[in-house]
């Protein structure tokens, strides 16, 4: 992957990552957290949101646009790669907080698909059925799996 991304931090257990989005709205702390959803096969949920500077909690109602959506997605992809280095090439599930955000993620994935596909299988949920990610299709959620080297 040859995309621009932010530098990032990791927790000891490599299940949570932090980076700062920089842009017209200032410096916004982003949190990426992986939590196991199921086994057979193993799937982890990728949760992603802005940390409220006052409470330290994730603010899922925040509407921030630092004009860096693709750089943010590239950084999230990097955290997925780092997570997989520690835990293996399991399925990673992701869904936006709202349908609108899911659509934004989908558009970013579509733009970056040629950079992502060499390293990851990418799937989308459409009417609760998984299919290989296609452009110009509206998905409800996504699943990625790092390819074996």
């Amino acid at each position, binding site marked *: 992957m040859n995309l621009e991304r932010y530098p990032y931090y990791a927790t000891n257990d490599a299940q949570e990552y932090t980076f700062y989005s920089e842009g017209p709205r200032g410096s916004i702390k982003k949190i990426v957290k992986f939590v196991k959803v199921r086994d057979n096969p193993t799937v982890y949920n990728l949760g992603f949101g802005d940390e409220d500077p006052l409470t330290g909690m994730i603010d899922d109602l925040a509407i921030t646009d630092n004009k860096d959506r693709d750089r943010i997605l590239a950084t999230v992809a990097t955290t997925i790669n780092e997570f997989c280095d520690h835990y293996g090439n399991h399925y990673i599930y992701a869904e936006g907080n709202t349908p609108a955000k899911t659509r934004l993620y989908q558009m970013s994935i579509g733009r970056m698909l040629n950079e992502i596909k060499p390293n990851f299988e990418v799937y989308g949920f459409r009417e609760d059925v*998984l299919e290989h990610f296609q452009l110009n299709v509206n998905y409800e959620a996504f699943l990625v799996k790092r390819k074996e080297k």
Partner: protein
Amino acid sequence: MPETKKMPYQKGFGKPVAIIGESSHDNDPFFIEKLEKAKKRLANVTFPIEIKK
């Protein structure tokens, strides 16, 4: 945490700038709710048979 705001953007996959200890969001309702939503959607999905090519 080390200051990253002045660090240049990086390209490609790379290692974290630093390891920052334990998670502080294990009990955050946001992640708990996201997990429950994921469990519901994935409850009836069979891998990989249902993955269409």
